[in-house]
């Protein structure tokens, strides 16, 4: 696998960038991507198939005043790239300008992740074996386990970004993922369990984590829920286990701190920098440099180095997250949050690894201090309306707390809250920080890998969308 700078030479890139500016645009950019992926799925006791995929192409962005023109192509020849650059230039501004030249320096290959074993160099047989091991482990937990599906996925994503302001950078992003979902059946119907693990590392993922353990956990979750009772309906204190509730912050405030949404006045956090927006217990960080984590990147998809950014410090909003366009518009520095799903997409402000750092409470004490409430051990997905701040997230494994003790399992449901209110209502924060499951964050039709994390914490009141009075 040749590097992208071997595939597309620097001189070609300079010509393409110059062509992009040929209609008078102030900024042009080329994003080249070559992604190889392998996935394998097991379902119903069979390896259904191994799939290999290849996506390779370039996206060319041209910014003229307030207008962005964008074109992409799977044709990486100089002619193909120049044609796309012309399309982007015309899209940004009809008409013709003068001749422009762009000169680039040496390439910047910034890496934050340390990959030991490139997954595309691992025999497929070993990937398939993992699935079979997970299947057996899940089925051995209980006779009630009636169905297991397991998935393996890896990708090697090579990107190169260059722009007319001299950015010329490349990164290799290697990700490896494993997931298990289980169905258990009992007298009361069927229940499901799910768990996943993923890091921005290679096949050494499986030296660090055990697929059997992951599968057994998913199976136990499904079996436990067979005895679950309906979740409560209404507002209650909620304790969220470490490493399972990062999605709470992702939805309650993460999206609302993206500068593109703030800039359009579509965030409840607009105009609040320097103000108290959360309980003083809360310090929220977005950190693309966390080596090996699911949202870790050497450079963002605009060629800017990833950074560690403090968003909320002791409850006070310190800054938003930024991409090139929004930073330029508001004369702010970029923060390494300009990301895109693929070369076929425009970049925008996105999170990387978003987490709340440790407090001082012992996790057991947080449960003991809660007379009646809900303990959430595993959260599902979520979504937010950044303008109103209303957000939901699902609980896939939860228990009742009665008299300071975790008791009966609960059926699934959504929790609903308002971001700014929930941030203020965090009244206990544990000292047991952990990162959570690998996530895919969706925004404007694009998905990117993100990480999240938090210590065990309590929200003094959240609305639980169950059916029990």
């Amino acid at each position: 696998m040749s590097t992208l700078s071997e595939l597309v030479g620097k001189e070609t890139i300079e010509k393409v960038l110059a062509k992009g500016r040929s209609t008078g645009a102030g900024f042009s950019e080329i994003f080249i991507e070559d992604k190889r992926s392998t996935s394998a799925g097991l379902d119903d006791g069979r390896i259904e198939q191994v799939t290999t995929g290849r996506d390779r192409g370039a996206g060319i962005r041209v910014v003229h005043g307030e207008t962005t023109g964008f074109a992409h192509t799977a044709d990486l020849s100089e002619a193909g790239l120049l044609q796309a650059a012309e399309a982007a230039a015309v899209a940004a501004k009809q008409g013709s300008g003068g001749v422009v030249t762009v000169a680039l320096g040496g390439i910047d290959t910034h890496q934050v992740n340390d990959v030991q074993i490139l997954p595309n160099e691992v025999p497929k047989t070993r990937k398939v074996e993992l699935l079979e091991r997970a299947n057996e482990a899940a089925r051995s937990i209980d006779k009630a386990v009636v169905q297991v599906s397991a998935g393996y996925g890896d990708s090697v994503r090579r990107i190169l970004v260059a722009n007319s302001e001299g950015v010329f950078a490349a990164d290799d992003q290697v990700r490896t993922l494993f997931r298990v979902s289980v169905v258990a059946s009992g007298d009361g119907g069927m229940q499901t369990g799910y768990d996943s693990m993923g890091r921005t590392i290679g096949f050494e993922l499986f030296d660090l984590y055990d697929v059997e353990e992951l599968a057994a956990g998913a199976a136990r979750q499904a079996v436990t829920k067979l005895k679950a009772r309906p979740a409560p309906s209404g507002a209650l204190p909620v304790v969220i286990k470490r490493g399972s509730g990062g999605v709470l912050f992702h939805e309650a405030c993460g999206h609302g701190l993206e500068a593109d949404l703030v800039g359009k006045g579509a965030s409840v956090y607009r105009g609040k920098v320097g103000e108290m927006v959360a309980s003083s217990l809360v310090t929220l960080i977005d950190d693309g440099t966390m080596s090996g984590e699911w949202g870790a990147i050497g450079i963002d998809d605009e060629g800017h180095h990833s950074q560690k950014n403090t968003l909320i410090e002791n409850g006070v909003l310190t800054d938003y997250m930024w991409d090139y366009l929004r930073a330029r518009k508001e004369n702010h520095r970029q923060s390494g949050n300009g990301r895109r799903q693929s070369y076929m997409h425009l970049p925008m402000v996105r999170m990387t690894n978003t987490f709340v750092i440790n407090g001082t409470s012992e996790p057991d004490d947080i449960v003991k201090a809660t007379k009646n409430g809900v303990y959430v051990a595993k959260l599902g997905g979520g979504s937010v309306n950044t303008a109103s701040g209303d957000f939901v997230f699902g609980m896939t494994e939860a228990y009742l707390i009665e008299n300071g003790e975790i008791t009966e399992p609960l059926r699934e449901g959504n929790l609903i809250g308002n971001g700014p209110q929930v941030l203020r209502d965090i009244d206990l924060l544990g000292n047991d920080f952990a990162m959570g499951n690998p996530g895919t964050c969706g925004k404007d039709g694009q998905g990117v890998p993100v990480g999240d994390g938090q210590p065990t914490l309590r929200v003094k009141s959240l609305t639980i969308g169950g059916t029990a009075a």
Partner: protein
Amino acid sequence: MSSGNALQDLADRIVAQAKPGEQVEAYVSRGGETSIRIYEGEVEHFVSAQSESVGIRVIKDGRTGYAYAGTLDESVLSEVFAEARDNVQFGSVDEWAGLAEPDGVAKVPQELWNEELAHFPTAEKIAIAKELEKLTLATDPRIRIDDANYDDAYGETAFATTSGIRAHGRENGCYVSVGTLADDGDETQTGFGFSVGRTPTEFNLGRAAREAADRATRLLGATKPQSKRTTIVLDPYVTAQFLRVLSGSFSGENVQKGRSFFAERLGESVANPLVTLIDDPTNPLAYSATDIDGEGLAARRNVLIENGVLKQFLHSSYSARRGQTRSTGSAVRTGGTPGVSCLAMQLVPGTGTQEELIAQVSDGVLIQMVQGLHSGVNPISGDFSTGASGLLITNGQVGAPIREFTIASTLQRMLQDVVAIGGDVDWLPMSANGMSLVINDVTMSGA
């Protein structure tokens, strides 16, 4: 053998390379899109893009392998074929693995290609999006615009298999959408409106603008309701989303693999007798109408629930072989192997307008938007819980707006608890139609 179509020829050429004992399917496509976003009267972005892809499935001795690439470049095609072949050895032997075979069912032709759209001038596309922004702004002084968009796309696909299926089709379409923000003091609420057409001349910009403004402004001043059991009236847009959640439970493959709560219930009452639900991609009114399914077989009309009784499950050629029945033309492509899904769900309408249905409700909630169906609904267990916003209903009249609450029940119960279906059918841009729907006895969770 030349079909006179380059894409079909390419698919045929790939399949012709099959070796003895190999079943091969080639699925090739190319397409393009225009995406224009307007903000404050100016073009914020203009995306003009082309894409292409190839997927090759190889089955040998009951084992399946698959590979794909996002290019039709000749040098990559041979790599993809080689990868698919290589992947075969890692699949388990599956006695039902195989390709679809021609079944003699005639296609119902659909008019999926519009010449007018194919030649529609770019400047007019921009003008339409600007007009939508202007119209929306003019509806209400409290309204701001998040973005106004014009999007269109075209796609062309061709199939070929060693089992004798060949299918080629092309399709285009366009839509406009607008996102709104409504402010009142510190409070901001959001809305959206859209219009869909085979050509921009079919757009109803006025309706899109009004709906976008209404959705945002009607929530201003909304409060969080008290928790209680209540009756809900779903707006057509919400009904369509509710139907989509049910889709997987009709999949024959999910039934075979123990993932459908409808398993073992064929011929039984699974819904209120008012409910007749069909899947009919041959209906040209459906947004997702099509003449072929994801394996190249003719799409067809399938009755799922008739007067409350579960009539049949849907099948691809794989699940049909496994269940010793015939494909219902319900294959969809999600990854390599075709899956099974509803293609165009249609709840048979009842009678009455939304107002007439609401007039029958003494105490309830009109649900106008839902949030978090993906996180709070488990289609396997049937647990249903979603964030919602809407209007309180008292004595048959809508009243104050409410938000930040959930509604919950189970899918199984909700089907039985349907008490009225409206006649106000809306053909929405998704794979289900919508109309007002009244469901009893759900739990509303709020303060």
